[in-house]
């Protein structure tokens, strides 16, 4: 008894269109969530290194709370637990305008923001303390020193782990299917429902994720080369991957 592969199900009927729609939704979801994660990550990562104790505490609470609860729980939380707190008309408006997408964005963004925060913190802490002291001694305030000196340097140092986090975010966006977001994994399941060809659909989904992530990894490695600071991070060897 053998399983008969029939790859044509991937371009017959609506399958190709569904995969494309799924890919677009995955990219949209990941992109918006990434921006949110980036903003939250930089601000809380920086706050974790400042000398003002309450701010450091606040950032620590955010990071530990959000990164230590499974993403799936956050999806349900933002989709099922948060909307009932809003007034009824706002709820109806949200439900009519893709509440599941925005719940997915917030869940992914806030969760990955907490993880990204640790990357930023480690970047900042790898910069010699004298750098900060030098910045302050030129007359910059603490906020200015962070904004103009410390964070720009840290961002250039953390490109490799940040790439890692970004790729994780893209792959984790598939968890949003549990609250009904029609992203790429959802669409591969849809194809499976219509054609009963699970292996073909999953393979197509896998390859699309792989290509998407490879493309991003390639772009990021270019960025890394371009923004490497001589003497602070080893420049990646050119040539073989």
């Amino acid at each position, binding site marked *: *008894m*053998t*399983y008969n*592969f029939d*790859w044509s199900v991937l371009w017959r009927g609506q399958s190709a269109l569904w995969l494309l729609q799924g890919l677009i939704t995955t990219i949209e979801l990941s992109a918006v969530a990434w921006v949110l994660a980036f903003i939250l990550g930089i601000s809380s990562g920086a706050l974790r290194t400042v000398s003002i104790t309450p701010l450091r505490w606040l950032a620590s609470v955010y990071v530990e709370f959000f990164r230590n609860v499974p993403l799936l729980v956050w999806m*349900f939380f933002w*989709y*099922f637990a948060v*909307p*009932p707190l809003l007034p009824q008309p706002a*709820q*109806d408006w949200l*439900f*009519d305008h893709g*509440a*599941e997408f925005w719940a997915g964005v917030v869940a992914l963004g806030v969760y990955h923001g907490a993880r990204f925060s640790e990357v930023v913190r480690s970047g900042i802490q790898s910069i010699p303390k004298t750098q900060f002291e030098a910045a302050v001694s030129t007359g910059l305030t603490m906020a200015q020193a962070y904004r103009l000196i410390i964070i720009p340097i840290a961002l250039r140092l953390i490109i490799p782990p940040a790439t890692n986090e970004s790729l994780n975010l893209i792959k984790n966006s598939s968890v949003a*299917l*549990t*609250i*009904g977001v*029609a992203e790429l994994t*959802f669409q591969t*399941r*849809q194809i*499976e*429902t*219509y*054609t*009963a*060809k*699970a*292996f073909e659909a999953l*393979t197509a989904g896998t*390859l699309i994720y*792989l290509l998407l992530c490879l493309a991003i990894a390639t772009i990021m490695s270019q960025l890394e080369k371009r923004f490497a600071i001589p003497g602070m991070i080893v420049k990646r060897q050119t040539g*073989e*991957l």
Partner: protein
Amino acid sequence: MKRLLLFLVSLIAVAGSITVCRAETTLEKISQSGIFTIGTRTGSPPFAYVNKNNEWVGFSIDLVETSILPLISKKLNKQIKLEKKESAPNTRIPLLTSNAVDLIAETMTDTQSRREQVDFSLTFFATGAQFLVKRGTPIKGIQTIAGKRIAAQQGSTNAKIIRERVPTAKLLEFPDQPAAFQALSQGQVQAYTNDGIQLAGLKAKAPKPDEWAVVGEFFSYEPYGMAMRKNDSDFRQAVNLGLMEAIESGKYFQIYEKWFGPKGEVPYPLTPEIKRFLEMQVVPK
């Protein structure tokens, strides 16, 4: 980069040429391991669910336990143990083809396109798609759902029909029944479509059953069958014989009464038509 490309190409080539080979038949496999594995649900009362006492029970599971399992034990001349694994609409066919389970016994509709992938037993239950709504909402059936937010279970035939017949309905698909019901009770959606019997089950299990109503004519025909790997006629014969004996001896109707009778988990009386249909599936000895 070149090496990476080469690796990718060979990976794709390997994936393309895999054929899932299997030398033994299902009965041989069961006989060797002594275990008969079924794929079933944990959240589809009363067919297969985890009850208040944390036991995994249901109508479909009872049918397997009382009718099919003894027959297989007798046929193989040894005591066979039943093992249950969780299956869902989108995992059940891969579970079968990968040999993880031997039989899908839950709420799977027998369809022509599914028959291209798996074989089905006799029909052991027949129902059709309807809607579960909060009592008093204007949704009365498939004619009145245009522009409304409708939940469906992902991978179900109902979602497919709604997408084709009412493309203006805002369809939201959830991986499982509890999530869909949660969305309905909070207003994320205005109706939840599934097979009528499953909705009746949800309503019966809800904290306040009177708040809910199952509405609409059947807009699909959903004959439930048990699925198994294709082209394994000895095993299929065993499953079918078990079901036939259960219907003929009346055991089927006792089990039906236990789950769907007036005192059952989900009261859902057997119509004379369906009863006759079940009986006529039993071929003479």
